[in-house]
């Protein structure tokens, strides 16, 4: 019961702050609300015993990506854009489409939710902690994908530097 109340509080925080992210006018406020969203998603990770993922979420997302976002908000002059219209002209149509999509998702989920409850979840009593288990999965089972992901990060870093630097005359 306590667990469910905690989940509902975290879920409500996530959704409300996510809605605030896409409705605020000032981009700095959007970044702050996105940080709140990411923290509550991290709380959800804690509820499913993914402690390592929580640490990654806080360090990498809140500490890294959000600082990057704040830097760009600072570098780009947004005073003009903040005074203009924040939504597109046909935003009602887009909202309607997205709400229909949401309705379809929820309908499908509620119809098929009985198939989701595995009666006997294979409970493997492991002595190792979550970080150890994730590390084992990453460096043994998913060795090649980890290497590919690191190359992807390297390419993205080089690409970001090349695109953001000034052209040399």
């Amino acid at each position: 019961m306590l667990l469910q109340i905690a989940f509902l509080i975290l879920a409500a925080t996530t959704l409300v702050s996510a809605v605030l992210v896409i409705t605020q006018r000032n981009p700095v406020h959007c970044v702050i609300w996105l940080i709140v969203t990411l923290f509550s998603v991290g709380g959800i990770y804690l509820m499913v015993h993914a402690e390592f993922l929580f640490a990654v979420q806080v360090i990498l997302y809140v500490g890294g990506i959000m600082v990057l976002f704040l830097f760009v908000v600072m570098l780009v002059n947004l005073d003009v854009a903040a005074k203009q219209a924040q939504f597109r002209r046909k935003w009602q149509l887009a909202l309607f489409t997205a709400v229909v999509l949401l309705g379809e998702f929820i309908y499908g989920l509620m119809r098929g939710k009985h198939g989701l409850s595995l009666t006997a979840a294979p409970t493997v009593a492991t002595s190792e902690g979550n970080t150890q288990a994730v590390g084992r999965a990453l460096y043994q089972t998913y060795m090649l994908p980890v290497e590919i992901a690191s190359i992807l990060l390297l390419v993205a870093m080089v690409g970001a530097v090349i695109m953001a630097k000034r052209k040399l005359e």
Partner: protein
Amino acid sequence: MTIPVHWYLLLGTGLFSVGVIGVLTRRNVIIILMSIELILNAVNINLVAFSQLFNTVNGQAFAIFVITDAAAEAAVGLGLIIALFRNKETVNADEIDLLKW
């Protein structure tokens, strides 16, 4: 007393839809990028929920790959925004129509 899995999936669905609405309706490119981050987090919630359901850590490993992708996407996207702002002096997505006739 555990939490049913479809609660997590409903939360992921809601977060995904908020992200989709943000991508489709906002004009500011930076906020569109932030909405993409919301969508990626919704995916992560689903992965982690199924990871708990099947009692493995494979889903968590995939969530880490998704976070890696999010980092790469944010770096490239923000670099693009800086280059774009230097050339066109705007961050509104509907004013960036260089390729549109």
